[in-house]
């Protein structure tokens, strides 16, 4: 009766085990599961303080089937750089060195270390699983918390009233070879991006939107649905930036209104209709900005947009982008 299915859209091999300590419906657990399918066993992880510091399990146990080197909160990228250099000096070839951190350790306390690594273009893959707050310490606000969200440090009367920090563009500004967004509701896309990134030399950055049912004040069964909506409402566009050239991977034909996404989550329950409309406008404006970036960076590189003919390259970097 039980056979291995013939048609799977993601690799069947698993590099985490059951028994880990993630909450019910944890998006970060799914993100990790998918990323490791793309990376395979010749991989080492370094993880700063974040949910995964705990999910992996206490000493003397681990959940991952690859080495996990825990490191201080602000230091994931530097740790990865050191590991990469050390492994090379030890003669270990082709090991995927991955820094895996939450939004806190990436966008806030860890941004210096990340910026340093990216500026040097050190050969590491930095993956941020973004659940949009300091979830591990009890849902305090991070710079990645979206405008309008409740957190314990931005209670409803003083909700987070600054836009979500755009780490993707910060990383693009470092002129690294590959920057991408992903979401654990789109496993095939996530796996493909991690698989692509691991074979690129230099610093690669992928930010994965990962739901957090307790932190988003949401029923755990909506873990995947909510993030699918984040993408389909264009709150979290799936895109890649290949050597500075923007490409939006998923352009929904019909734009789902953001209200559909927001209403699933208690962290947005206090918003008025006007505030929801403000969010819609922010999302629309950001989408237009991305479309513009996609068009202009393609033009600069002399690359055709899908459905258009190629034009002569306009600026430097066209060779690199075309290559």
């Amino acid at each position, binding site marked *: 009766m039980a056979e291995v*299915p013939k*048609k799977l859209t993601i690799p069947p091999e698993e590099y985490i085990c*059951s*028994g880990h300590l993630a909450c*019910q419906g944890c998006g970060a*657990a799914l993100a990790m599961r998918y990323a490791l399918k793309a990376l395979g066993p010749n991989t080492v992880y370094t993880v700063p303080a974040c949910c995964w510091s705990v999910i992996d399990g206490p000493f003397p*146990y681990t959940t991952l089937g690859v080495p996990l080197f825990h490191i201080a909160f602000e230091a994931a990228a530097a740790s990865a750089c050191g590991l990469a250099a050390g492994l090379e000096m030890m003669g270990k070839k082709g090991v995927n060195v991955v820094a895996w951190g939450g939004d806190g350790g990436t966008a806030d306390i860890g941004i210096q270390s990340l910026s340093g690594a990216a500026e040097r273009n050190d050969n590491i893959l930095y993956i941020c699983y973004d659940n949009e707050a300091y979830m591990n310490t009890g849902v305090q606000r991070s710079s990645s918390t979206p405008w309008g969200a409740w957190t314990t440090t931005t209670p409803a009367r003083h909700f987070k009233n600054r836009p979500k920090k755009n780490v993707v563009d910060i990383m693009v500004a470092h002129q690294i070879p590959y920057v991408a967004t992903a979401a654990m509701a789109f496993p095939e896309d996530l796996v493909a991006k991690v698989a692509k990134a691991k074979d690129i030399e230099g610093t690669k950055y992928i930010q994965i939107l990962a739901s957090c049912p307790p932190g988003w004040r949401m029923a755990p069964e909506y873990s*995947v649905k909510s993030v699918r909506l984040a993408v389909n409402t264009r709150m979290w566009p799936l895109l890649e930036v290949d050597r500075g050239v923007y490409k939006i991977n998923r352009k929904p034909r019909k734009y789902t209104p953001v209200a559909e996404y927001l209403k699933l989550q208690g962290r947005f329950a206090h918003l008025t209709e006007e505030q929801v409309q403000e969010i819609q406008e922010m999302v629309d404006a950001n989408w237009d900005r991305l479309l513009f970036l996609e068009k202009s960076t393609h033009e600069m590189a002399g690359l055709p947009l899908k459905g258009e003919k190629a034009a002569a390259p306009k600026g430097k970097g066209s060779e690199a982008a075309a290559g």
Partner: protein
Amino acid sequence: MTEKIEIRGACDMPPMAKSLGRMSWNLTGSWRNVTPVIDYEKCTICMLCWKFCPDLAITCTEPPQIILDYCKGCGVCAEECPANCIDMKEGL
């Protein structure tokens, strides 16, 4: 599934906090309040439930089966199933 590791003291420990085994001894099935039940008459073996389980508590088989030892009862499989054939039942 693996066994819990007994550590009597320093004699059983490496010099630093380095893991000695996996977390699979931890039967997270005890966390459940509701349990998924698959109606195999309706199941199309699309494998979305296996794909979306954060706890690897669904077997990668035709058809998929819930691993009750580990299933935390999050309900993602039931929510995502396109054939609507998974029910989250109480008291199981």
